[in-house]
């Protein structure tokens, strides 16, 4: 109690009346989360304002509900401004005083946020108290220019064999995950976050998961899963649930990018997942229509492309002079009925450095992840792929594409020549090997060893139906008997001659042991 009294007395003693004038406006009209404000002549775009409920109340009334409500100016007009309300809009009334805060919308950033769940304003929503983050940064800023960037050449392992082998992602890259609802888009992102646990503490990226317009139960489940797998130790969750105002859903990805940039500028690596940008686009469309901006295609405003391009441009690999940090972005887009040619999907496809396309048909066939290898691509990732993975996975994509063609042909012909049958079996085996359930990302060295086994023909003596079981046994066997080989691959990031020789010996022994 004494400490509180002391603190209050200290504040009273330190108080000096502020003589300076501040610029204020008055709410002219409010509705649908938008406030029309008279005045604020010198206000600038993206500036924060404070709706002051205490101005025309007595002190007792004011103390009963002292929490300020913030707004964000999005329209500058002739006789006032229009702002989106970043809080409970029902508390805003006509004639309410609005103060300029003379600062752009900012959030607190720093290592104190790691392990926390925050809203797009940086306020904690996990019930663990204040975040204690000291540094504040504006959420909108210009992306780094060409001079400050370095080529993407360090891999970011997702732990998913199909992705790491065929659609490799580099640190600083923007790889879109696209597909219909329920095809496993979030699973790929979450598995990637979980897989970072296998990285050493020095190279492990800080992971930021931005949930936009998601059900709160889904986000709670994801946070629990990340915590259970020990991934919250290096993760931050930014959430703007479906029940939050459209303004917060529109701001959430920018908040995630700002948090990620902080770590990037510290010379560290960061990974940010935007789940998903379709919902952000819908929230932005809602805001734009309420702000009476002219609607364009599909009623989206004219600057919807710029919204996503300025966000995704913030993903970068910085040059050595700038500390060498990186911010990798995994935006997610939900398609309707597999239509990748819709407005928002085509926009984001053209902005990103590649896409992982997930298909409902493949998902229903039991393929996990349900990646359509034909139209999935990584435009810069191959230069970030490790030598080991390049060596073992070089031809997989081509072989799988050939297999898919043959598979289609096979439906019309029952009598196949031995060579075609052999190819089809090999394709089936490879498909089985690349099949990977949720929540089991593999360390890079294990992925390389398994794919090496498959591409070198060691599994040819097994029927495609047996592959799943054989792979499990192989993993156990490699962990048990080939620890040295795995360690060598992990350390050197390649399969050297010596290592390959030992691995082949171990695999020969494994096949001899398990062959029917």
């Amino acid at each position: 109690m004494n400490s509180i009294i002391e603190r209050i007395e200290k504040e009273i003693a330190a108080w000096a009346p502020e003589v300076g004038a501040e610029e204020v406006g008055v709410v002219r009209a409010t509705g649908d989360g938008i406030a029309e404000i008279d005045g604020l002549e010198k206000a600038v775009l993206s500036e924060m304002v404070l709706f002051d409920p205490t101005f025309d109340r007595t002190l007792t009334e004011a103390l009963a509900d002292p929490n300020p409500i913030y707004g964000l100016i999005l329209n500058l007009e002739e006789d006032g401004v229009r702002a989106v309300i970043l809080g409970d809009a029902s508390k805003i009334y006509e004639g309410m005083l609005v103060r300029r805060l003379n600062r752009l919308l900012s959030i607190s950033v720093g290592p104190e946020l790691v392990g926390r769940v925050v809203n797009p304003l940086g306020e904690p929503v996990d019930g663990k108290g204040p975040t204690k983050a000291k540094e504040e940064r504006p959420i909108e800023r210009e992306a780094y220019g060409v001079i400050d960037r370095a080529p993407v050449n360090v891999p970011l392992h997702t732990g998913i064999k199909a992705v790491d082998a065929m659609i490799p992602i580099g640190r600083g890259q923007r790889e879109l995950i696209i597909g219909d609802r329920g095809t496993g888009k979030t699973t790929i992102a979450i598995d990637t976050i979980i897989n970072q646990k296998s990285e050493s503490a020095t190279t492990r990226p800080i992971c930021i998961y931005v949930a936009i317009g998601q059900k709160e139960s889904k986000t709670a489940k994801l946070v629990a899963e990340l915590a259970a797998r020990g991934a919250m130790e290096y993760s931050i969750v930014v959430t703007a649930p479906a029940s939050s105002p459209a303004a917060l859903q529109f701001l959430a990805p920018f908040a995630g990018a700002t948090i990620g940039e902080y770590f990037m500028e510290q010379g560290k690596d960061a990974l940010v997942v935007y789940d998903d940008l379709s919902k952000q686009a819908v929230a932005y469309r809602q805001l734009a229509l309420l702000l009476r901006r002219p609607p364009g295609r599909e009623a989206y405003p004219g600057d919807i492309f710029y919204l996503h391009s300025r966000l995704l441009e913030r993903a970068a690999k910085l040059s050595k002079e700038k500390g060498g940090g990186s911010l990798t972005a995994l935006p997610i887009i939900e398609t309707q009925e597999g239509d990748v040619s819709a407005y928002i999907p085509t926009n984001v496809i053209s902005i990103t450095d590649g896409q992982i396309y997930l298909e409902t048909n493949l998902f229903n066939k039991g393929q996990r992840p349900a990646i359509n290898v034909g139209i999935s691509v990584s435009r810069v990732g191959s230069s970030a792929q490790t030598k080991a993975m390049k060596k073992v996975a070089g031809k997989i994509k081509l072989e799988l594409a050939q297999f898919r063609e043959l598979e289609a042909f096979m439906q019309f012909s029952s009598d196949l020549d031995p060579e075609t049958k052999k190819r089809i079996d090999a394709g089936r085996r490879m498909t089985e090997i690349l099949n990977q359930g949720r929540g089991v990302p593999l360390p890079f060295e294990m992925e390389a060893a398994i794919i090496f086994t498959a591409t070198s023909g060691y599994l040819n003596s097994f029927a495609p139906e047996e592959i799943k079981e054989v792979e499990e046994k192989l993993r156990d066997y490699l962990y048990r008997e080939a620890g040295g080989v795995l360690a060598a691959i992990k350390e050197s990031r390649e399969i050297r001659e010596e290592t390959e020789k030992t691995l082949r010996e171990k695999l020969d022994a494994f096949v001899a042991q398990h062959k029917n």
Partner: protein
Amino acid sequence: MIDTYTRILEAAAEVEDKEASDAAVTKLIMHLKSMGRLKMLPQIARELRKVAARRAARRPVIEVAHHKEAAAALRAAAAAGISASHTSVNHGLIHGWRARSHGRLIDHSAKRALLTIYQTVTR
């Protein structure tokens, strides 16, 4: 259209000569009648009321917590650039004064100070 007519009348209201401004209103009514757009008149009146309310909100207002602080408040506000002929009493301020004019606010009240302290301590 309504905006244009409102602006014309707003400009007419600025003119000191009352007869001239009355004449402007009469002319506008005649014009609307001849165009068959007399229906717009209530909307124009509504817009003008909004403009008047907006202007009233921008007039200098000086509030004090007690009558005895009025003279000092007027002097201090004038020094800070807000001049008014009188003050109004607002007991909710507890102590001190606050002045508002043309989108500028100077809050010298104890209520604001106490709220600032409360927010700092409880943050």
